[in-house]
């Protein structure tokens, strides 16, 4: 995406007499598309609330949904106040953005590429929100709500904002040439790895893995999947930052990889366990969405099928074979799907890129190496910082609810509400 921003900026500089100039650089078609994409990405976070909320036990449905919903509110404000500035303010040493944009000072209607700067800011803000929300699947059904508040604020500020700067804001990773069309490293590897750290630091749910903890409402999970899939068109195709051919490439790659990943997960589970499941289809779809994210604007449809298929296989193995062996309780498989899927996607981008950039299979062997550097850097930052943030949070409020509260459920103990009165 960074490449595209540069291209657009260049285009703007070099073509002062073009159609753009007539309207002060703003293209209304592009602006319409980015505003819509921003709305679509916003919808993903409530989508996640349902995706996650359906999978927990009935007594934790509101507590789980509240995580996503609260983060939507919290990071919306954090981003406007200081997050955007840390991520996209004038570069400081390749590491972080300066404070010039605090409170969106100086961020207005003027064009950024071919869209209003405010539109670019808001589109990016939705990415910050969902990234933080994704992590919450790791500690579902046992986190104190006050801990969520502190953890989210710190994580957004210390992990997301700088990492976003590294890749898209003019930082070192983007300069290195790492390809990340719509956020494979920034969004998925970072949240997936942080989720794993959180699951291990916070510890298992009471009763896990002895007691089965079946999803209480798979309809909610399917609804969430649908909203995620729908919103992801904005996430990926919107990352073209224009309503053009690249957006169409990314749109098609997104849909195709997602479908392929869902099919593969379904078939693998069918072969392995004897039955094709809806939750498997939903999980595979999300794995596919994750894996295609860094590659979306760089690959054609057949590569998309392969990337999706890989996501279906690798994430299925991570979730159903690796996790039980290793014994950690990442409640809703954030690592298994976003971490593993994100890493596969980042590497696969280095393998399959063919549109506007070349990967290994298209003659550019070095890209894979750069991609791996990106993955490693993200893993290191996410692991260390998340660990520290959890320890700080623990000091301030404690991380887990009491055993009694866990048995009663988060809905009643944290929020004084019940999900259903049927």
């Amino acid at each position: 995406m960074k490449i595209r921003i540069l291209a657009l900026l260049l285009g703007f500089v070099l073509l002062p007499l073009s159609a753009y100039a007539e309207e002060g650089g703003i293209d209304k078609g592009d602006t319409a598309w980015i505003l819509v994409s921003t709305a679509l990405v916003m919808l993903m976070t409530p989508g996640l609330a349902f995706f996650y909320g359906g999978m927990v036990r009935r007594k934790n449905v509101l507590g789980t949904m509240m995580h996503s919903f609260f983060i939507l509110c919290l990071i919306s404000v954090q981003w406007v106040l200081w997050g955007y500035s840390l991520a996209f303010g004038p570069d400081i040493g390749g590491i972080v953005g300066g404070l010039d944009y605090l409170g969106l000072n100086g961020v207005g209607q003027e064009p950024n590429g071919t869209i209003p700067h405010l539109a670019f800011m808001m589109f990016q803000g939705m990415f910050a929100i969902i990234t933080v929300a994704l992590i919450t699947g790791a500690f579902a059904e046992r986190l104190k709500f006050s801990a969520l508040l502190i953890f989210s604020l710190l994580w957004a500020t210390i992990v997301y904002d700088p990492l976003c700067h590294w890749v898209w804001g003019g930082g070192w990773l983007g300069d290195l040439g790492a390809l990340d069309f719509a956020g494979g490293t920034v969004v998925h590897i970072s949240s997936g790895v942080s989720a794993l750290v959180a699951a291990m630091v916070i510890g298992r749910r009471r009763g896990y893995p002895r007691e089965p903890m079946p999803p209480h409402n798979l309809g909610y999970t399917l609804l969430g999947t649908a909203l995620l899939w729908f919103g992801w068109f904005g996430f990926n195709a919107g990352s073209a930052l224009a309503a053009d051919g690249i957006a169409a490439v990314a749109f098609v790659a997104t849909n195709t990889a997602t479908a392929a990943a869902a099919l593969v997960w379904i078939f693998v589970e069918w072969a392995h366990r004897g039955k094709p499941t809806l939750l498997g289809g939903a999980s595979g779809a999300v794995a596919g969405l994750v894996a295609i994210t860094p590659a979306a604007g760089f690959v054609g449809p057949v590569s998309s099928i392969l990337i999706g298929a890989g996501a279906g296989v690798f994430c299925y193995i991570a979730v159903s074979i690796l996790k039980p062996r290793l014994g950690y309780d990442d409640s809703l498989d954030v690592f298994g799907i976003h971490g593993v899927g994100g890493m596969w996607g980042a590497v696969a981008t280095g393998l399959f890129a063919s549109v506007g950039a070349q990967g290994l299979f298209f003659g550019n062997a070095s890209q894979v190496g750069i991609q791996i550097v990106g993955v490693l850097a993200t893993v290191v930052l996410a692991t260390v910082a998340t660990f520290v943030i959890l320890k700080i949070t623990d000091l301030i409020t404690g991380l887990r609810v009491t055993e009694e509260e866990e048995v009663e459920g988060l809905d009643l103990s944290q929020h004084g509400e019940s999900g259903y009165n049927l």
Partner: protein
Amino acid sequence: MKKIEAIIKPFKLDDVKRALQDMNIEGMTVSEVKGFGRQKGHAELYRGAEYIVDFVPKVKIEIVVPEENAQPVVDALLGSARTGKIGDGKIFISTIDEAIRIRTGERGKEAL
């Protein structure tokens, strides 16, 4: 008076109700329960993992009848709830000391 409690397979409820209506039983109370017995539960899948749900959905029917009607009701139940497969359920009979109709305050057989 006797209380007859039958634990049956849910999809048999309609047949049982019809059989009881046919013999002019005018009242019964039904609830959803989960049974545990010889009939095995089933396996469910959760992201590639299998777990066993050992409770089986059942329906409990309670019918209070004058003692002399107990046997016919049992026969009707046996006739209508049986599939011949494991898990068809049980009938338990116990004694009711008194029955009262709330609306009228009638007691005993009159209340049923």
